[in-house]
Each structure stands twice: as structure tokens, then as C-alpha cells.
């Protein structure tokens, strides 16, 4: 039976693992390889690694780190951050990632989504859409590289991304990031219903019940979370955790 995925979203900064709140104040939470080893044992569905500084600092993806991650990953993972060429993608997939996540450069040059999908197939190309609510205009795509909102409607952008070859949408809410207040279910549902490709909801999960809501109410194909899987308790002590298969069966029916 097909099962919706539950995906830890791990943010990378200078090769360390960090966690943000509303895309700000990255806090160091540990070593990514150590986290991968723990998630291996917990038989995680998949991990999304996002380097939050690569594009800002105009850096290439951290290939040596990807190689290290891949050597320990016996589950699928996707990598995003600093990808700007077909050669970048080829190298990341060769090293052992299943998928790459395009964000900043796809916003700048949507044609790159098409180019990448033609070479690597749609199933390897995830388009990440950061969203932020705006008092006057409602939901808009947020340009996290430049740190400002765009005029783009995320639903329209997701439809365009699908049309030109994206295989999956990673929908990440800036307002919800790290807040434990639940997913932006309205946004998740809008985008999920508008496209025929899987949508991964991210941002705001404070409990496993939120994960269930993203799937059942938001109609997401997968639910991703950062804080929920790296912190424990109200003081946010670092503790890598993930539901057991029995728990997941109860969560997603």
C-alpha cells in the first residue's frame, strides 16, 4: 500500500545543521552526518537537505558534504542550495541524491526547471517554493535569497513549475517556520489541489497531529518538518526523533 511520506527537513549552514525561526536566527543543532545515522536507524522515509546560505553567498553546492551524507544514507534524500547548472545536478545525483531542490535560480530563470527535467526526468527535480502572507496581497512567493517577497502567486508558480517539468513541489511557509503553530493548511490545500504532482508541505509542524492534518486536510503528498524532528520539549533541547512505523500507521490511514 502506498504511504504518504514524513520528511525531516534539515537545514545546512557552513556544513553544520541549523534550525531557523521564520527563516531567521539559525541556531546550530549538530552534525549532519550524525543526524543521518540516527535517521537511518529510525528507518526514516526521506530527508530534505537545504543549504540556506549557498545561494545568498553565491556558493556552489557543498559536494564533499553531499558525498559524506550519501555514504551514510540508506534512504532517499534530496539536496537543495546553490544549484545553478546541469553539471551541478549531475554531480549531486551521481553522489547519491535521488532528487535536487531548485529554488533561487528557478525563480530567476524558470527555464532551468525545464532544462533540468529534460535531462534528469521530472522525478529528480523538486521545485521549492517559499511562501509568505502579505497583509494586502495575500499569499506570495518569497525570495529567500534576496530576503524579500515577490509579486508571484504561489499557485500560479506551482502550476507553471509542473507544466515545465517539476516532479514535486516543496512548499515552505516563512511565517510558520519554527513556530510550532501547525502548517498553513489553506496554502497547502490550494497548491496541492492545483497541481497533479506531489506537494510536500513544510513549516509549522508542532506535533504529529499537524503532520496528519497536512495530509488529510491540506491534501499534501508528504509532510516535512524541521523543529519537530530535531528538538524536544519547550526548551527546544536538541534531540533527533522520528515516529516509529507503528505510530505512522496510526497517523496516516
Amino acid at each position, binding site marked *: 500500500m502506498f504511504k504518504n511520506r514524513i520528511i525531516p527537513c534539515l537545514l545546512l549552514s557552513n556544513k553544520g545543521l541549523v534550525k531557523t525561526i521564520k527563516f531567521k536566527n539559525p541556531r546550530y543543532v549538530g552534525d549532519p552526518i550524525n543526524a543521518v545515522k540516527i535517521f537511518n536507524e529510525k528507518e526514516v522515509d526521506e530527508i530534505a537537505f537545504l543549504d540556506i546560505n549557498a545561494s545568498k553567498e553565491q556558493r556552489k553546492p557543498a559536494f564533499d558534504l553531499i558525498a559524506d551524507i550519501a555514504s551514510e544514507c540508506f534512504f532517499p534524500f534530496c539536496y537543495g542550495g546553490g544549484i545553478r547548472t546541469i553539471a551541478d545536478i549531475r554531480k549531486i545525483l551521481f553522489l*547519491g541524491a535521488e532528487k535536487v531542490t531548485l529554488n533561487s535560480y528557478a525563480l530567476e530563470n524558470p527555464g532551468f526547471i525545464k532544462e533540468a527535467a529534460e535531462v534528469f526526468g521530472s522525478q529528480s527535480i523538486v521545485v521549492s517554493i517559499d511562501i509568505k502572507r502579505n497583509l494586502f496581497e495575500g499569499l506570495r512567493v518569497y525570495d529567500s535569497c534576496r530576503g524579500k517577497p515577490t509579486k508571484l502567486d504561489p499557485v500560479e508558480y506551482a502550476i507553471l513549475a509542473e507544466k515545465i517539468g517539476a516532479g514535486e513541489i516543496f512548499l515552505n511557509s516563512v511565517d510558520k517556520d519554527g513556530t510550532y503553530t501547525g502548517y498553513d493548511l489553506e496554502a497547502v490545500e490550494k497548491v496541492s489541489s492545483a497541481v497533479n504532482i506531489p506537494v510536500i508541505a513544510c513549516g509549522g509542524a508542532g506535533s504529529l497531529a499537524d503532520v496528519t492534518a497536512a495530509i488529510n486536510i491540506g491534501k499534501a503528498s508528504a509532510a516535512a518538518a524541521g523543529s519537530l524532528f530535531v528538538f524536544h520539549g519547550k526548551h527546544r533541547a536538541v534531540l533527533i526523533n522520528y515516529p516509529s512505523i507503528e505510530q505512522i500507521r496510526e497517523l496516516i490511514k
Partner: protein
Amino acid sequence: MVGTKIVIIDYGMGNLGSIANMLGKIGYQAIISSEVGDIAGAGKLILPGVGSFDEGMINLKKLGLIDVLNHKVKIEKVPIMGICLGLQLFTRQSAEGTLAGLGWVQASTVKFDFPPKRSNLKVPHMGWNTVAIRKPSLIFNGLEKEARFYFAHSYHVRCDNQDDILATTDYGYEFASAIQTGNIIGIQFHPEKSHKYGLNILKNYVEAF
């Protein structure tokens, strides 16, 4: 089999490192290569693949690997396992592209096409799913009841001969998720990314097949 030279064919299509990693975990050293010489000397071949069908065929041609592969697989009958796109390339053609495939199995590759009442299913079929065994095979030796596998594909194989189907998976309908014709075995999911369940499949291929 111990001592057999395992070659993972490098044709620029995807996650070769992870297959070698997983084999390494169970103590087998595989060679990742695009050299005709390495492939000619292989005792067991793996054709992985993440990518599009035509791009895969173009790369195999560009590297001059088609003749050596035909010889190994059709004449020498050396075992070969295709994973994901690797499996699809074994077929005659694919709805994803215009080029002819390797044509080693009586099958074609088609896109997921759901009846309207199942049209809420997303494509690609992306995530974890189970398999139903249709025919006994060494590849599924020791398959656990809990076994689940990672899939990431928009196209799947349709066999002319139902007898070639080892296992099926349900996504909108039952499709062939593992097939075999003699020394040729193909798997639609990614054993290299399927935790201990996938490890078991790779172990079976190397040791028992």
C-alpha cells in the same frame, strides 16, 4: 557469488554511488565504470538510472556500451539488474522518449494513466509502497512481511508476457514492479534507498542470483 566482478554501469544517469555504498555495507566491492573493458570482464552487471529515457539511451550510445552490453547479456547471459530507468531501458521503447530501448525484454514503458475515479493520484509515484509477489524468485528471498520500498517514477513497464512479472505494486492499478527474463532482472523501485528491505534485495542479487 564471492569473487565475481560486479560492475555498476556509469552512463551519467544517477545515483551510482548509493548502490556501491549499500553493496559495501554488506562487504561487496563493486566497480563503477563506463569502460568497455570493465563491463566485458564483469560477472554481474547493474544498470542503475535516474533520468529520462532518451538521455539514457543517448549516453549508452555515446559511451559505446551498447555492443558490449548486448554481448554480455544476450550471448554470455551474464546476470544484469536494471533499477528504475535501468529497467525501463531494457524494454523496446518508452512513452517518455522517441528512441528505441535495448529491447531485451518483451515489454514497453508507459506513463501512469489512471481511470478518472482515481485521478486524485499524483504522478510521479513518489514514496514508499509494498510489493505483491507474483512468481517465486531468489531476488525476494527472505522478504519481510513489513517490507516496503522507495519508488520515484512517472513511467512503468508493461510486459507482453505476464510470466515475466515477479512482483506487482498497486498505485491506481497493479503495475509490474519487478520482472525477470532469464538472466535479466529489472526492479522499478530503488533497493539502494530502501533501508534493510532493499539491502536484502541487493544481497540476494549478488549472492543467490
